[in-house]
């Protein structure tokens, strides 16, 4: 048995088209927003807030009041996130990957300010747009976000974070490298930054050689995006384990053992079928 020759790629093409469309949409919206901001010189966040309600103007300004102007006698009554000073939050947040940071920034205005003020974003930005000042023809500059170059904004740290978030699907979170391939070849998906579970990256950093097949992946362990070389390094240090009864067997036998074949899928196809039903189907095979 060999791999099927004529693989149906129509589904994959659709997915790729959708990805490209979303990237272009984001790019265009970003561009429109940029130009509008540059012409008027008003920050978008405050602008939308002003348009929505004049009564909330003071409270909805994202800059907000400063954090550590609290009087000592009220200390015990104030929430813990206000009592922890900014430099301690920065110490805590230095352990988090960029996607985890952006999740923290969605909590409230205070957290948004703290996260967007981190030095990490400008570091990433400097790596993503390396020749920003020289105006050289750099490959990354041309392909990232469809070739749109950043405009130096009014409030740089927040701008850096927004740029990194807009281009996040093309950036590796560990080495901050960018994959900006413009031609779509068969290697395109392989080199694209793909999500990997954090526990595997952590295990690789600790040089844990082998995790058991039944390692519990907790639902709270989110994924981070890694580029091809980082993924290679992670899997070299912490290889993906296989079940014990599968060792020494060929890949073909594994696939037929653990996956449903085409012939099995077609007659029994139901959209909402449970995983346990599929396992029952596999186990019901005569040769097992």
């Amino acid at each position, binding site marked *: 048995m060999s791999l099927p020759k004529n693989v149906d790629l129509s589904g994959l093409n659709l997915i790729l088209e959708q990805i490209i469309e979303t990237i272009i949409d984001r790019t265009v919206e970003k561009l429109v927003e940029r130009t509008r901001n540059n012409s008027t010189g008003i920050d978008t966040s405050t602008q939308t807030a002003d348009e929505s309600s004049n009564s909330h103007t003071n409270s909805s300004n994202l800059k907000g009041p400063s954090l550590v102007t609290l009087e000592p006698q009220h200390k015990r009554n104030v929430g813990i996130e206000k009592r922890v000073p900014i430099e301690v939050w920065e110490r805590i947040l230095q352990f988090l990957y960029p996607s985890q940071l952006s999740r*923290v920034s969605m909590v409230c205005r205070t957290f948004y300010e703290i996260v967007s003020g981190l030095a990490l974003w400008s570091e990433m930005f400097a790596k993503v747009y390396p020749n920003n000042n020289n105006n050289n023809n750099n490959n990354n500059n041309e392909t990232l976000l469809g070739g749109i170059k950043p405009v130096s904004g009014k409030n740089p740290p927040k701008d850096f974070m927004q740029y990194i978030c807009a281009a996040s699907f093309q950036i590796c979170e560990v080495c901050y490298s960018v994959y900006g391939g413009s031609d779509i070849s068969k290697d395109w998906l392989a080199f694209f930054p793909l*999500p990997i579970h954090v526990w595997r990256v952590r295990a690789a950093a600790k040089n844990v050689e082998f995790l058991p097949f039944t390692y519990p992946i907790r639902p709270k362990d989110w994924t981070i995006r890694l580029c091809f070389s980082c993924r290679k390094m992670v899997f070299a240090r912490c290889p993906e384990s296989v079940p014990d009864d599968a060792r020494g067997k060929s890949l073909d036998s594994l696939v037929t053992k653990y996956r449903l074949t085409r012939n099995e899928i077609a007659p029994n196809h139901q959209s909402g079928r449970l995983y346990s039903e599929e396992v029952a189907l596999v186990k019901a095979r005569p040769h097992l």
Partner: protein
Amino acid sequence: MKVTLESSDGQVFTVDKEVAELSVIIKEMLVIEQANQDHPIPLLNVGAVELAKVIEYCEHHRNDPTIDDDEDYDSRKKPIEMDDWDKQFTIVNKEMMFELILAANSMQVKPLLHLGCRYAADIVKRMSPTEIRDLFQIDDDFTPEEQDKIEWEKQWTKL
């Protein structure tokens, strides 16, 4: 040589001098006030419960080599080593851990601050925004427009 410390609610602790000197603040105060050591050193920002815990940590780590805090390291890639005692020490509830971080910050006990921040990061990075709001009892103070904008900005995190 012994040093006496006084917490914000008036409790007095007596510890060895080299234990107390793990705190940068106390070390500097001892240099300044070398002449009169009769009265206890007041720690206005640290409660008795937290101070007891901090002293417990300092007693255990009294012989550790001092960490150069200015060392530039990428803490995302390098996990620090925790021994079994540290693991036992960090089994406290989340509010207590943040109180300890605040105490370590105000007393400038660098290794404890590092340990606590790492623990807090472990808590925070697993949580969704709603769970963090529940933990710290924070209100969601974004306007609906800003909420939409930020949700759109952070599509990254949906994966």
